[in-house]
């Protein structure tokens, strides 16, 4: 004798009548932990169960770093062109359009100036959701201009890297952005203005071969992938199995390429503590 008896065979509910669970209520971390998204947001987008730092974008980082989420965005209108008329399986302008529609962003970096713990800070933050955070002309130019703003106004500068590297669809133009951004960092260095590089998951290729590794301090979030060649390429080239934790933040710290690893919830404090210390000014509470 069963508790329930199916009167009709098969599923009777029509597709339109089926009830959907609203999207975005839950987040599943790579270790399989399920977290309420509201809770995740309140915890700096870090899974409270396993400490996993969820990939976030410029919107969230600005919220974390700037007091009361107040900031002025710099050069927000810059957009990519298609100087090479690049076509692979898709046309580059189509890829750009699709990325813009999907992300509501203009390109893979946003720059802003605002108060962080009461003092000005210029932040350029990459968005991985926009064509893998790839660096083309716009990313290079916006970072250069943000650095220039920091230079002219004598404000500490920070770049948050989150990128697969240079943007192939702008080929050598992308490559030269490594030099362009480095020019501005050299000028900042000559002027004695602190530059902080935060590497987040992932930071690879051209970003690692330029600004991500050139900070007065290089810091990272826990567990981020950071490297020049991606792990797949290294494995294919060398034919060796990669050691556990290869190219993670902890690996780079161990090999001497990071000053420290910071939890996201401590990021704002740590960055400002460094600035106060290196500029020999009173520590902010």
């Amino acid at each position, binding site marked *: 004798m069963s508790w329930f008896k199916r009167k009709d065979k098969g599923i009777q509910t029509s597709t339109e009548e089926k009830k959907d669970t609203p999207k975005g209520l839950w987040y599943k971390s790579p270790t399989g932990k399920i977290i309420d998204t509201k809770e995740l947001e309140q915890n700096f987008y870090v899974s409270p169960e396993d400490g996993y730092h969820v990939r976030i974008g410029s919107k969230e980082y600005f919220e974390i770093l700037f007091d009361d989420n107040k900031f002025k965005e710099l050069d927000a209108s810059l957009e990519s062109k298609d100087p090479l008329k690049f076509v692979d399986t898709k046309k580059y302008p189509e890829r750009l359009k699709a990325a813009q529609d999907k992300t509501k962003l203009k390109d893979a970096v946003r720059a802003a100036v605002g108060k962080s713990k009461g003092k000005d800070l210029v932040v350029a933050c990459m968005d991985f959701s926009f064509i893998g955070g790839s660096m083309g002309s*716009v990313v290079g130019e916006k970072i250069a201009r943000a650095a220039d703003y920091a230079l002219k106004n004598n404000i500490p500068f920070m770049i948050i890297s989150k990128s697969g590297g240079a943007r192939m669809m702008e080929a050598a133009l992308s490559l030269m952005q490594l030099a362009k951004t480095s020019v501005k960092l050299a000028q900042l260095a000559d002027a004695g203005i602190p530059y902080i590089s935060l590497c987040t998951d992932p930071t690879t290729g051209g970003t690692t071969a330029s600004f991500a590794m050139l900070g007065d301090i290089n810091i990272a979030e826990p567990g981020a992938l950071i490297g020049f060649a991606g792990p797949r390429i290294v494995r294919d080239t060398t034919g060796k199995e990669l050691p556990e934790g290869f190219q993670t933040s902890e690996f780079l710290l161990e090999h001497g390429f990071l000053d420290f690893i910071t939890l996201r919830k401590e990021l704002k404090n740590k960055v400002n503590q460094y600035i106060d210390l290196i500029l020999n000014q009173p520590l902010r509470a």
Partner: protein
Amino acid sequence: MEYLEFELPIKELEDQLQKCKIIGEESEVDVTETCAQIEKKLSAAKKDIYKNLTPWQRVQLSRHPNRPYTLDYIRAICGDTFLELHGDRSFKDDKAMIGGLGKIGDQSFMFIGQQKGYNTKTRQYRNFGMANPEGYRKALRLMKSAEKFGIPVVTILDTPGAYPGLEAEERGQGEAIARNILEMTRLKVPIVTVVIGEGASGGALGIGVGDKVLMLENTWYSVISPESCSSILWRSWEYKEQAAEALKLTASDMKKLKLVDEIIKEPAGGAHRDREKTFKLVSNAIVKSFEDFKNLSPEDLVSNRMNKYLEMGVFKG
């Protein structure tokens, strides 16, 4: 001499010409007329083939096994004056990156470049021209040493990329390249850069920031090799020709995009067809470039160089 696939018609005619000459020497038959005809055909074929090279054919020429490599240029240009210098002073001596002092005329230069091998053994020894972090650090050490004594720097680019190895990552390949790029933007002596073969991505730019960047006619320079580009964007190795096309990686494309300053024309058929002439052309181009900068103050030199790189990029808004 080895021939690429698209050069085979030339090989055929050259063989014919050779045979014809031998017949002329060994017998009483007058071959002058026939030889002249073949020569005419040959020069027409050469013109036809080399005039319309596709980007992919240029990539193939840039990797031609008979093409001269960095040390060939330096030895030809500097003769006995060249003194090779080794080591990064912290880890080891990278054989894929060579450097040293040499003279052109009365002027000393610091030469730095990636080095490829010419047979299996030396190719391995030179790691196929793929430098490790210590190579870039050796290059930087030599550049700083040149700066200290006011010696101009010549960098010679020929690499399929920085080595993507496990140990290279451990020792900070990205950091080494990044550091070089930054320091080169503000080095207080003139830097002349010559691309003699392959200019692949960060591995090339890691010694490639210059006041004047010259490309030999049959070389390529881009953010990625056509093969890797094909494998990533097309998810197959089969589209290297299209990728070479799309990347706009030839010398003339790079000049049009204002990412390099000048093209050095090669002898017909490529640098390897007349090595001596190529060496002379490159030597002259280095001297001429240096002339443009030798009287600039270090401040003007650096600020011009910085402005040049700040202008690179195309965007709207």
